[in-house]
């Protein structure tokens, strides 16, 4: 979601697998950005399993996202809790109302609209685990997308699955009214059959023969889906190969080229910070994890200022205002 100054404001941190440190990395990035003098708001998007507030030492939040979703609070801005860390505001997730774990489309749109209005330079959205449509939609809406994972085989597998699900979700929304492309997308799942389209490149080649206009639209959609990889809990140089694995598979099969944003070394001190429910431990300058997060924060700031130009187009922001909201949602980097 780029702002009027064409700077990416909303960054989502997702990754599919639970327990890989999404909330802690969101918090750590927030701390690093705040250290750089930026005003940051963290949103706990793990609807139904929120705990970012706990990591920040807030045990009993008086206002959460639930209050906004159920319209007890009119403005999202009014759900911000000022934290003990200067420059960081927190919007707690909803964890005590079953309904809020599955917001309606209208609720999602209302939330996404108001995120744009939040008084911050950066909004970090901590995504829940899994690949629910809500998670994928929030991830796809974000101008900045970070897929987080560890070097564990299961995490790499889930991160790839998450990226692929997000891309397919985006494509199926972008081409929601195009039965032909939707069918071809689904045919990609028919592995082992002679006519299966094993890669997105196969799909592109097939569509190119049918319609150049659709081919251009699909290429554009793939270009728009740009994301960054961050590997967490790195213990050795061998662990640094995991982003390369995901990059090559994404390039070969999904026709997208994720960039590596950085890595966060394993740091036993982080465990202590969680156990003591004190975020201040993350401030320690000796913390290896924070050193990695500081590097990532610097790149995040840089990437936020470098919007990717639309594929073969320029200056579409004005045109986009007339597009349906759903289209804007799935083309975040075009404005």
């Amino acid at each position: 979601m780029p702002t009027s100054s064409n700077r990416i404001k909303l960054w989502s941190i997702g990754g599919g697998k639970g327990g890989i440190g999404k909330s802690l990395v969101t918090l750590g990035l927030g701390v690093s950005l705040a250290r750089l003098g930026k005003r940051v708001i963290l949103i706990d998007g793990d609807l139904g399993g929120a705990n970012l507030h706990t990591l920040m030492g807030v045990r009993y939040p008086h206002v959460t996202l639930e209050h906004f979703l159920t319209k007890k609070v009119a403005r999202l801005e009014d759900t911000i809790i000022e934290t003990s860390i200067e420059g960081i505001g927190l919007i707690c997730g909803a964890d005590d109302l079953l309904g809020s774990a599955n917001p309606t489309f209208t609720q999602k749109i209302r939330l996404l609209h108001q995120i744009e209005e939040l008084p911050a330079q950066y909004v970090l959205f901590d995504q829940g685990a899994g690949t629910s449509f809500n998670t994928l939609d929030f991830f796809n809406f974000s101008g900045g997308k970070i897929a987080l994972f560890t070097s564990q085989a299961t995490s790499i597998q889930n991160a790839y699955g998450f990226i692929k699900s997000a891309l397919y979700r985006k494509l199926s929304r972008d081409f929601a009214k195009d039965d032909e492309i939707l069918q071809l997308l689904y045919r990609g799942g028919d592995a082992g059959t002679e006519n299966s389209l094993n890669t997105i490149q196969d799909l592109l080649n097939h569509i190119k023969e049918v319609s150049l206009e659709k081919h251009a639209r699909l290429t554009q959609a793939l270009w728009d889906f740009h994301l960054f990889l961050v590997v967490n809990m790195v213990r050795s140089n061998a662990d640094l190969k995991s982003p390369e694995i995901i990059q090559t598979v994404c390039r070969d099969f999904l026709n997208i080229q994720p960039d590596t944003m950085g890595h966060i070394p394993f740091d036993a001190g982080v465990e202590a910070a969680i156990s003591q429910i004190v975020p201040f431990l993350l401030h320690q300058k000796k913390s290896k994890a924070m050193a990695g997060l500081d590097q990532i924060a610097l790149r995040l700031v840089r990437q936020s200022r470098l919007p990717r130009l639309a594929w073969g187009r320029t200056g579409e922001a004005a045109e986009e205002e007339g597009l349906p909201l759903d289209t804007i949602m799935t083309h975040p980097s075009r404005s």
Partner: protein
Amino acid sequence: MTSGHPKPEAVTTGSPALMLEVADLEDKTPRLIPVLIQNLSMGGVTLAVTNPGVITDWDRHRGRDCVLRLAGPGGQETINIKGKISWSKFGGVGQPPLSLGLQMARPPSEALKRLSNLLSHTSQDIKGLWDRYDQAQENPASSQLVHHCYIAGLMLLIGGLAFQFAGSPSYKMFGWVLWFLGSLGIAGKVMRSYWQKRGSQ
């Protein structure tokens, strides 16, 4: 690409690409049994035996040595993978007559690649993911060695250059040798990275 829907059991088609060699318990004669691959992990493989009648008592073969013969496509060399039968299970309706679990003894990466290619129900991208994962897991020790060679090469190069420019004339030849050895160490690392990149493409 995966669809997330359950898929039917895999079958290997055409001529038997996969044969299991098991020694008969009575007369010790090796028997070759055509098998199909059902599943694969880093060290284990699940096989389906469509005609288990060749061996009378499969339960007695648990823990026994066996050889999985993997015929190469297009006249490539057959790979023999040594292993042990971990378990056997007779199937019900709609399942293979017999399933076997094999623990493979250090299967080469080429063998794993060929085996995964026989899994027709697996999507190509997931295969690709695991192929690359296996490649990354291979020989961490050799990666360390190459890294150490690189560091040593760098030091030799610097030492050689120091002798070249600052040493007395009698040490200049020695400087050349260090310089040459150092360059070899660095070139080795560069070439390895280049070939690894090419291999992954």
